[in-house]
């Protein structure tokens, strides 16, 4: 086997944990997952794949790495799942270490490849099966495991304590009031129209986004609230680390919090994986066909505010700007056209990307890859040269990223490939350019 720079990365989450594995344990876990958890799709997908390699053209990691066969979607399945099936789970710790690296850091489960496989084989699903196995064996990149641990203990991703949470909201309410005196962040308002939920990095490192939303909600005149208790975090890294038990707990609490507050719907901030967890993966694991109340993604929400005239644009944004179609809300929710509407409504000089909509390239930060932390950053960057080229070709100076993972991932890419661009959320642009009615100014 050839030695790749990735195989030399030191990560205690892999290096230390494999020391505790026994062949029996590995085999038991593999068989359990194959037979009990994912039998039908796994069987049919593995039997249907004709090993044609057409899915390769879809994958940004493969294209970015000069079409290295190891990185094609089917190549990754071959190195992991096929091998496990062939060897009936009789593999050693080193194999599990390699598999963990591949499934967590070399695939962002973006599902672009399913659109290129003639049979619609869900390769990302197969690699998620690999993640599940790694999770049950405890071999997960340490940083990612830490976010899952945080979810398990605090029900949010970043160890935010309740007092910290409430404190941050109050601080950001004051910040918003500096712009709009009547702005509020209403806590625990039962029967409100909307519960607004965010991901934990907002209170932890991007608190100004909470102030922004307070301004936007006030201008739009929305009857909204945020929970003061756990259940405010809609993110879910446990879904990506393969810890579905914790994933289920997090999602259940999120929905139960909305039910407790008797809101009509949840509006969520700009994040893709959070939508996926809350609306697709979470409910399915919990045995609900669909979520109990509607969940509106920020893109949809801003689209509604702009089309209904609840938010008016004072002056369009001037700088040349392009956009990132987040996998989980464009490929995963079909919001691409609405996103274009928002961009054109807000900005004077919008420059679209190619490929776009469903076919856009993933940011290579989602799917938990960015949460694998600094040890894997270089690998992630090398895996997404194609994104840098795509963004550069637009000639824009700003990139609008309506997703937290895209936001951080593309910021990394801009730095690594020295693109000299800046990354912004929709809400950041919106508060700059929206019209604040006179009566709200005093």
């Amino acid at each position, binding site marked *: 086997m050839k030695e790749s720079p990735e195989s030399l990365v030191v990560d205690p989450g892999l290096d230390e944990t494999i020391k505790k594995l026994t062949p029996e344990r590995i085999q038991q876990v593999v068989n359990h997952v194959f037979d009990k958890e994912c039998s*039908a799709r796994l069987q049919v997908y593995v039997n249907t794949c004709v090993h044609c390699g057409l899915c390769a053209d879809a994958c940004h990691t493969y294209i970015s790495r000069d079409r290295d066969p190891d990185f094609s979607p089917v190549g990754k399945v071959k190195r992991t799942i096929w091998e496990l099936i062939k060897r009936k789970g009789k593999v050693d710790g080193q194999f599990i270490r390699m598999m963990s690296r591949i499934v967590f850091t070399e695939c962002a489960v973006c599902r672009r490849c399913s659109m290129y496989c003639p049979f619609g084989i869900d390769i990302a699903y197969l690699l998620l099966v690999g993640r599940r196995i790694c999770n049950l064996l405890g071999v997960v990149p340490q940083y990612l495991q830490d976010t899952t641990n945080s979810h398990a203990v605090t029900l949010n991703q970043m160890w935010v304590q309740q007092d910290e949470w409430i404190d941050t909201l109050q601080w950001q309410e004051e910040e918003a009031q500096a712009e709009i005196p009547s702005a509020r962040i209403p806590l625990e308002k039962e029967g409100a129209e909307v519960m607004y939920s965010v991901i934990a990095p907002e209170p932890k490192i991007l608190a100004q986004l909470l102030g922004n939303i307070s301004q936007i909600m006030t201008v739009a005149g929305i009857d909204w609230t945020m929970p003061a208790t756990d259940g405010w975090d809609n993110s879910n890294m446990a879904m990506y680390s393969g810890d579905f038990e914790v994933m289920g707990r997090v999602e259940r609490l999120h929905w139960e919090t909305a039910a407790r507050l008797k809101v009509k719907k949840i509006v969520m901030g700009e994040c893709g994986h959070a939508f996926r967890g809350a609306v697709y993966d979470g409910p399915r694991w919990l045995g609900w066909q669909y979520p109990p109340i509607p969940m509106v993604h920020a893109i949809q929400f801003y689209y509604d505010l702009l089309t209904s005239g609840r938010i008016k644009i004072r002056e369009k944004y001037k700088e040349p700007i392009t956009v990132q179609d987040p996998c989980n809300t464009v490929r995963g929710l079909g919001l691409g056209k609405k996103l274009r509407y928002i961009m054109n409504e807000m900005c004077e000089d919008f420059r679209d990307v190619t490929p776009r909509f469903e076919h856009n390239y993933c940011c290579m930060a989602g799917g938990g890859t960015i949460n694998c932390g600094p040890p894997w950053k270089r690998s992630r960057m090398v895996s997404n040269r194609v994104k840098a080229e795509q963004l550069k070709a637009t000639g824009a100076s700003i990139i609008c990223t309506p997703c937290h993972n895209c936001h951080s991932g593309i910021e990394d890419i801009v730095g690594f490939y020295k693109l000299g661009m800046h990354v912004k959320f929709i809400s950041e642009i919106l508060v700059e350019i929206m019209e604040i009615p006179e009566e709200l100014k005093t």
Partner: protein
Amino acid sequence: MFDFSRGPLVWIAFAILFFGSIYRIISMFLLLKKDKAVLPYMNLKFGLRSLFHWIIPYGSTIMRIRPVFSLLSFVFHLCLLILPIFALGHVIMWKESFGISWWTLPEPLTIFMTFLVVITGFIFIFRRIADPTVRFVSSAKEYILLLLVIAPFITGLMAFYQLFDYKIVIIIHMWSGALWLAAIPFTWLSHMFYFPFTRAYMGCEFGFVRHSKDW
């Protein structure tokens, strides 16, 4: 040997194909009882919509990215499906074995299509070897299966042009054809009957559930 190949062999091969496929499909549905996130999200309209885009030539993005491969693939599969059913010799066999008959392809067309299968088949084998990405995911099984699939067509041509001993060639023709049929349910040739299910499921995941498209 010849008589056996003409008679029971055909029956056995078809029985394996038929019951094997049914077995695979039924076991898929049985396994689906454990995999609950599939059937509730199936929807006829979106399933068919996706299938439609993937069976018409150049209806999906990847077909446009790989125009030559797609063309070859369409030609290969079309001939592969049509020839065994409508070739003159086979129509006689259908009549003798099962007592059913229909129209036949004109002989020159049959020969032309058979050549197409063999040539595209060899191109596929060549592609597997020449393209590092495909070679990486190809083991001996992939090459053997491809060869097995085109073997009846090669021997069909040999029989037509009376190369080598006709009887031996025909026996190989029949045996390779029978093996081919019998292999369908138990190898990736099963994409023949899994295709509508996997494609429709993905079409529903993308279209019905996620309001986007998968082509």
